[in-house]
């Protein structure tokens, strides 16, 4: 065919475009009228007749050629860089392992080369290359060193590592039939190695027996550190935050699941953020395997065969939520050592309890009169969530910062770069200095990295350094900072201050961060986090009125941005539900939020999830406020059982779960059933924080109350004496909680008939109330009522009458039934003065009020009727007395200890 000229070609193309869409007939009409060169027309005819789309014909050969172009497989004898492959010595989930010798003629060295199966992304490979320097610095006697790495001509990444002659730890234990203690000692060494790596910000993420070899001389060696992680993760993300929401997983380049399901943590399986806690989980699973713990058909551990302490250790290491596990491998190792030394293992450090109780101490007033117990728990579980969130955030930060840190390593400073065992704190400081020097002209980058570095400082507990960095970054940003970056820094700063318990300093900064984020349309998740931090800061200052609308707004925004069916929304509901419940605002609302959160959480995480138990707890508080104690009991029991199962018996979570359960039973009047549960909660708290710690106060007070209710006055007195001692040691003299304890002591003394002592104690209580500006009218009224009762007992009826008349009726608040005690006391005074009929009327009126508040079935209502039975007997109405006594014996039974004084009074009746 003749080749067309450029002009002719252009004509052909223009005409083709004009004609191709026309119907065939029209096409011919136009073609016939064309005055074109014959070559042009001929070409045009050909093209118009060949418009068939047949992409498969052309793309097919391209694809086929690509497929034919597969690289040759790597095998024995293949040369990779400076290494020649020897025999294949293993094959695992991650790929084949070959023996290798150095072949570049420089010096002889044998190694093992692991070819990583699956295709790693280029990004992951570059990351790996950068990481190699850090991994190479991971010099520890129990860690196989990474020597080199690269990718094969076919693109398969490989790692060259120190060759270890050993057998997998499970085989080693089996071969040598090692006793349990020896196995634990091996694991302690393993924990030490993993902890060492964690302190360099390197995680393993695929710990399992086949990655833990034991050499002939019994030394465990860890293989493959940092490999699976680096391959699985994309570059660092800077969406770290120190508050509630787990970051979205936008850019993770997960090409294969390079973990082993049996040892993999829930966060790995769910493709969530992984971190040091992931390794702790896997270690827990390995430990369970080495100790012969059976698995059920869903591969869950059945720890029942282990000694309780050991079971608790494994349960804590393998807690489903990362933030609930041991804080570090070192902590896990320490617990194992304590176990071997027959010392009590401490499941977790007590910082959470400490913060909760510190809060309680500051904000006692609203929590008075028995509600105090519950407050501790509310703060407890809230704080737990916060800690978990913080742990997640810290993990993200450490990963984000690794990239920058590796550049620190590679920095020109030979003194720094040459050192292999640079501890993380020095690393951080080096990073901070480098930040200052090198990025002076890039304030934005500097600020961003400062934010991340600050997060790492925060996560390793160096909060002051974190604050300094944030401040420095804020200054760097200058007069016109990018608002969202500034907001991020302020938010972090506020959180760190909050963490330092400097809530009054945290508050304005949190407010500023929230304000910026709102004005500049930060994403909803960030705004929700800011609202929660500010709301919590306010709550910790006891400023409920300001906190409440913020937490309500946070919930509304969470619903709007994440929808009802999201964990974020459920968390916001829990915060708000707890606030409503613990601040006695609305039991109905607390119950509603608790129910809704439970529904969503169960759907998303299942009913085994710790957050689900938190949601039940909020419901319990709501039910208690509403007065539906009977409904609260089974829920509270579930909370207790769940927390014991998840965290082990000897854990703060289990202790508080039991405490809630005892509380629900106590409120329902089942004091007798509640007693052993309460005692168990107290025992756990004592083991965790010591006999005389502040955290013991709440369960001890609960126990004393229950003992008193059952009529076990001597025991109650002993408990209260101990309680008062602890208060004194905690230097809370003059505080309302100490006054309350003394009030209770007076009440018990009166019940024991030690009226002079009771009078002295109660007079002292009243005097202290008078001097305390923070006192609450209800507490004063109760003390006056108690004083009246003591005076009546002493036969000083006029003073009793005066005391009763001095009581401010409005102090009893909105609940009518609280005035029952006043009526009952008036009745007893009438009886003591011989005005039997008046006494009987008042007793009946008081009982009716009590019944309206607690319900006709409530055992305490029936306990109060013992007075009436005694009165009837004295009024010569033995038949009625007998009938009433018979009813009381049945209805009050759940509240009466068989050897208690109340039971004795009942026994004296016909």
């Amino acid at each position, binding site marked *: 065919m003749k080749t*067309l000229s*450029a002009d002719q*070609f252009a004509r052909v*193309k223009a005409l*083709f*475009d004009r004609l*191709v869409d026309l119907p065939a007939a029209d096409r011919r009409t136009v073609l016939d009228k064309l005055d074109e060169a014959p070559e042009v027309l001929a070409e045009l005819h*050909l*093209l*118009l007749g*060949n*418009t*068939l*789309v*047949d*992409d*498969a*014909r*052309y*793309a*097919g*050969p*391209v*694809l*086929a*050629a*690509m*497929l*034919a*172009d*597969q*690289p040759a497989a790597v095998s024995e004898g293949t040369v990779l860089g400076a290494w020649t492959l020897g025999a294949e010595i293993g094959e695992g989930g991650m790929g084949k392992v070959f023996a290798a010798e150095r072949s570049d003629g420089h010096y002889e060295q044998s190694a093992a080369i692991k070819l990583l199966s699956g*295709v790693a*992304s*280029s*990004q992951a*490979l*570059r990351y790996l290359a950068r990481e190699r320097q850090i991994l190479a610095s991971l010099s520890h006697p129990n860690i196989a060193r990474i020597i080199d790495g690269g*990718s094969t001509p*076919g*693109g398969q990444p490989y790692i060259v590592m120190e060759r270890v002659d050993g057998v997998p730890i499970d085989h080693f234990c089996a071969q040598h039939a090692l006793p349990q203690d020896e196995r634990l000692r091996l694991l302690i060494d393993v924990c030490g190695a993993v902890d060492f790596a964690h302190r360099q910000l390197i995680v393993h993420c695929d710990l399992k027996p086949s990655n833990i070899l034991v050499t002939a001389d019994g030394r465990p060696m860890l293989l493959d550190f940092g490999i699976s992680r680096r391959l699985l993760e*994309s*570059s660092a993300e800077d969406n770290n935050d120190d508050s509630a929401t787990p970051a979205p997983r*936008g*850019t993770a*380049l997960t*090409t294969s699941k390079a973990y082993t399901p049996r040892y993999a943590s829930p966060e790995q399986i769910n493709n969530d953020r992984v971190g040091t806690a992931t390794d702790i989980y896997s270690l827990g699973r390995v430990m369970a395997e080495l100790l012969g713990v059976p698995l059920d058909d869903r591969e869950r551990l059945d720890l029942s065969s282990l000694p309780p302490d050991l079971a608790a250790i494994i349960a804590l290491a393998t807690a489903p939520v990362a933030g609930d596990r041991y804080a570090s491998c070192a902590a896990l190792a320490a617990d194992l050592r304590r176990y071997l030394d027959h010392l009590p293992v401490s499941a977790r450090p007590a910082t959470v309890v400490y913060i909760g109780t510190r809060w309680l101490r500051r904000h006692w007033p609203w929590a008075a009169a028995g509600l105090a117990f519950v407050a501790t728990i509310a703060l407890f579980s809230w704080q737990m969530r916060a800690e978990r969130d913080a742990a997640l955030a810290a993990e993200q930060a450490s990963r984000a910062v690794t990239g920058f840190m590796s550049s620190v390593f590679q920095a020109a400073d030979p003194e720094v770069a040459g050192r292999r065992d640079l501890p993380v704190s020095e690393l951080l400081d080096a990073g901070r200095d480098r930040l200052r020097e090198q990025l002076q002209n890039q304030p934005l980058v500097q600020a961003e990295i400062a934010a991340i570095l600050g997060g790492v400082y925060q996560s390793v507990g160096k909060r002051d350094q974190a604050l300094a960095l944030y401040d420095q970054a804020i200054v760097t940003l200058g007069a016109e900072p990018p608002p969202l970056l500034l907001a991020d820094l302020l938010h972090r700063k506020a959180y760190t201050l909050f963490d330092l318990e400097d809530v009054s300093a945290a508050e304005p900064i949190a407010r500023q961060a929230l304000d910026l984020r709102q004005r500049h349309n930060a994403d909803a998740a960030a705004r929700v986090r800011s609202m929660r931090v500010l709301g919590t800061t306010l709550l910790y200052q006891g400023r409920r009125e300001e906190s409440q609308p913020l937490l309500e707004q946070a919930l509304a925004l969470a619903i709007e941005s994440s929808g009802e069916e999201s964990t974020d929304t459920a968390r916001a509901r829990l915060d708000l539900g707890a606030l409503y419940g613990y601040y006695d605002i609305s039991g109905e609302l607390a119950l509603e939020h608790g129910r809704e959160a439970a529904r969503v959480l169960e759907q998303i995480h299942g009913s085994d999830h710790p957050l689900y138990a938190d949601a039940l707890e909020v419901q319990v508080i709501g039910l208690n406020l509403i007065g539906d104690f009977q409904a609260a009991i089974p829920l509270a029991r579930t909370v207790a059982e769940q927390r014991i199962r998840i965290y082990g018996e000897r854990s703060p979570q289990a202790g508080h779960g039991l405490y809630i359960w005892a509380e629900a039973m106590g409120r329902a009047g089942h004091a007798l059933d509640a007693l052993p549960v309460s005692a168990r909660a107290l025992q756990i708290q004592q083991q965790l924080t010591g006999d005389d710690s502040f955290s013991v106060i709440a369960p001890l007070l609960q126990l004393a109350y229950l003992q008193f209710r059952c009529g076990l006055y001597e025991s109650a007195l002993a408990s209260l004496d101990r309680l008062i001692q602890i208060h004194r040691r905690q230097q809370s003299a003059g505080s309302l909680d100490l006054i309350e304890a003394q009030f209770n002591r007076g009440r018990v003394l009166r019940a024991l008939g030690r009226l002079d002592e009771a009078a002295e104690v109660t007079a002292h209580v009243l005097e202290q109330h008078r001097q305390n500006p923070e006192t609450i009218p209800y507490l004063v009224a109760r003390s006056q009522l108690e004083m009246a009762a003591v005076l009546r007992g002493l036969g000083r009826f006029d003073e009793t009458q005066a005391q009763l008349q001095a009581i401010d009726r409005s102090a009893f608040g909105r609940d009518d039934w609280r005035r029952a005690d006043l009526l009952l006391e008036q009745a007893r005074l009438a009886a003591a003065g011989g005005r039997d009929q008046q006494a009987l009327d008042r007793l009946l009126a008081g009982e009716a009020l009590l019944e309206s508040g607690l319900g006709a079935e409530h055992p305490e209502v029936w306990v109060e009727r013992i007075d009436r039975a005694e009165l009837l007997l004295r009024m010569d109405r033995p038949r009625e007395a007998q009938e009433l006594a018979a009813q009381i014996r049945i209805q009050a039974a759940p509240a009466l200890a068989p050897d208690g004084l109340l039971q004795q009074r009942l026994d004296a009746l016909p």
Partner: protein
Amino acid sequence: MCSNGSGENGWTYVTGPSGQSLTAVLQAWHAGDGAAYGELFERAYGELRQIASQRIRSMGDSATLSPTELVNEAVVRVLGSELHWQDRNHFFASMSLCMRSVLIDRARARLSERRGGGALHVTLGQVDEGEESEILELLALDRALSKLEALDPRSSAVLHLTYFGGLARAQIADVLGVSTQIVDRELRFARSWLNTHIDTQL
């Protein structure tokens, strides 16, 4: 590694709308990061092959493969989703140039080995009848594209990006800096031209 630019393979520059060669545009795009680019190419190409062979294994037939699907999956795996979509398109356009040169080189080698008795290249293995016809188709496609390029660079570029680059029309429009309507028009013409002028005889 392949070099971007004029090939010894019979096809030269693919030209963008402004008359600037596509190669030059793309070179400018990854200027200053040559080493990283080279590695990226290797990775992406490996990725592409990997996905292709996985699909073939699971579906058993290369005809069900869509190049567009393949390329986009590979590019997300290699570059991640954080890279701007425009950069991704440019990267893959760029990569397709390299890939074409590699594939054509190797196709020629296999063919000459078969025809010349292949005494020296036993490692390349046997070439069967089906494969030979596919190789011929591939070489014919390459020749036709080169020929079209001399007449109409943009049309040829659209075709190249479709078959070797596996790009969808919107991506091609992005790389070439033209509207999708223009891409459609060019593609329609170029397909007809290819149907008319492809010649599988060497």
